[in-house]
């Protein structure tokens, strides 16, 4: 196990360096003045330009610029937003809100997705199964902003069950609707993943053995089938995290949730390039760490991964 962790950590280093380099390269190795390009059709005040040139060390050779930028990230210096607030400070206030929203979404999609996927798989070919497949197919095809607007219109405006935008301090009851919207994309994937995984596990020898030993259905389903079907669902969590980050950017923007996603959304809408770059870098770093954790969790769950070369 220790060997696996060490190997996995070593593998993460080139990826970490590579991704930050790639982002930096995309933004700052372009012809022309990257700082001016970042602002699009806006003309920022000269002192802002000056500050940014200093932050990104644009008077140095490219590779030195990158190393200085990387050093800054490790010291916790993630740059300054357009309004002059340090990005790390914005993260401190916005991250807890996003974390709460994301956790709610993950709980909703996992509980609903796994239970519907399980029932669907156990009753393959029935009406429940067929409708679950059709609904999940439709949900997969709907872009998240369409789901968000439709939910906002139906549940917020028409039925009035929820507030259409989130109030100050982001109380949990206001976050329910955005969390459901955020959960909707991965929910559909989890239903299908659980369903096919259950179908595969159901045919395994150990399930037949359990049945022939005379174990009740009530024990076979949760202990033998469900537990063994969950491994692909856990792996999906890592992919899901990327989906959640993009989803949170759109959902928080539409429902006005004061989280990391809305900050990025507003920076994109207003064309504040440097802030966008800082936030995307932070998100990619978080994404890398989460992927690493999921890989380790996976190894704990499945011994085959641990011992494979």
């Amino acid at each position, binding site marked *: 196990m220790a060997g696996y962790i060490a190997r996995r950590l070593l*593998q993460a280093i*080139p*990826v970490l360096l*590579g*991704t930050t380099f*790639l*982002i930096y390269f*995309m*933004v700052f190795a*372009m012809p022309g003045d*990257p700082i001016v*390009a*970042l602002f*699009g*059709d806006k003309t920022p005040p000269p002192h802002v330009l000056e500050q940014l040139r200093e932050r990104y060390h644009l008077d140095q050779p490219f590779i030195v610029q990158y190393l200085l930028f990387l050093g800054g990230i490790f010291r916790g210096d993630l740059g300054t937003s357009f309004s002059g607030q340090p990005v790390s400070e914005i993260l401190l206030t916005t991250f807890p809100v996003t974390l709460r929203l994301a956790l709610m979404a993950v709980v909703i999609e996992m509980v609903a997705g796994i239970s519907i996927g399980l029932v669907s798989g156990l009753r*393959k070919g029935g009406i429940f199964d067929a409708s679950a497949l059709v609904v999940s*197919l*439709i949900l*997969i*095809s*709907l*872009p*998240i*902003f*369409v789901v968000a*607007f*439709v939910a*906002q*219109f139906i549940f917020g*405006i028409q039925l009035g069950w929820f507030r259409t935008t989130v109030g100050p301090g982001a109380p949990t009851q206001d976050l329910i609707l955005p969390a459901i919207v955020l959960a909707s994309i991965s929910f559909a994937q989890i239903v299908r993943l659980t369903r*096919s995984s259950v*179908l*595969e596990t159901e045919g395994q020898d150990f399930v037949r053995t359990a049945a022939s030993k005379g174990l009740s259905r009530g024990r076979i389903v949760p202990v033998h089938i469900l537990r063994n079907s969950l491994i692909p669902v856990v792996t999906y969590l890592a992919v899901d995290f*990327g*989906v959640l*980050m*993009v989803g949170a*950017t*759109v959902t928080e*923007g*539409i429902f006005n949730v004061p989280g990391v996603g809305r900050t990025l*959304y507003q920076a*994109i*809408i207003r*064309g504040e*390039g440097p802030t*966008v*770059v800082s936030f*995307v870098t932070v*998100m*990619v770093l978080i*994404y*890398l760490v989460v*992927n690493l954790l999921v890989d380790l969790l996976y190894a704990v769950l499945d011994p085959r991964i641990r011992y494979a070369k």
Partner: protein
Amino acid sequence: MPSNTRPDQQHYVAPLEETPLVAIDKVKAEGKPTNLWTDAWADVRGRPMFWISSVLIVLVVVVALFPGLFTQVPPNNDCQLSNSNGGPAAGHPLGFTKQGCDIYSRIIHGTSTSLSVGIIVTVLVFVLGIAFGAFAGFYGGWIDSVLSRLGDIFFSIPYILAAVVIMSVFSQYANVWVISLAIGIFAWPATARVLRAEILRVKNADFVMAATALGVSRFRILLRHVLPNSIAPVIVITTISLASAIVAEATLSFLGVGLPSSTMSWGNDISAAQTDLRTAPQVLILPSIALSVTVLSFIMLGEVVRDALDPKARARR
């Protein structure tokens, strides 16, 4: 004991005349030989989902190529602010946008944008994915290490976020080609991974060894023997990536870093209608339906093709 056993023989062995080889061979000789693709076609042909999605896709392609067949209203020339958010009128079956433009005409004329982005991204992902996946899987060793780590790096940045950064830098040059490049350049690693895994499986097959023994060059083996036998999962993932690319373009346009507002695009129209969701929801919902149905038809086709090409998935149906 039957009479045809020799004295030293311990077990009964059926004489050849009892099971004539001709009879055994005959079973296989009947009918045309089948392979993965003919089997898949036979499977797909009988599924209504295949025909529904195919008809929808053909319709979308025809609309994209010949928008003039479906609407006589030019997309931009007819906008009158007096019609702002107006309901259906004669010659304008779906009503008007906030700018007083004909919604139906804008949806029809926006089709080619979405479809072009989808196709360009898919071709890009297909080519990059095959190049990286094939070389990494087939040659192995340090080539595999370098290419796979490179793929990991691109895979670690969610492609919509990467495209957001690229489009923020290139906002002045935003057009269909630039946005497709921005999406495609980060979307290929999934395809490469799938192909690499499949090639690792196929490259030890007997027919590869036979080709090697015949003296066929390595590159030719890859091109003529290994690649055609490992392309099936790539076809599936490519169909689905077309749908994802269309969603990605709409999302970028929605975020305001996609195509310029002068370009007809469903994402742009949805984005522009969001402020009036309360008073005129149809302006937002109609282009959303067009977008979702297009995406749905490609995803449905991908599902059907996956089921047909993967015997394991067929069993799960």
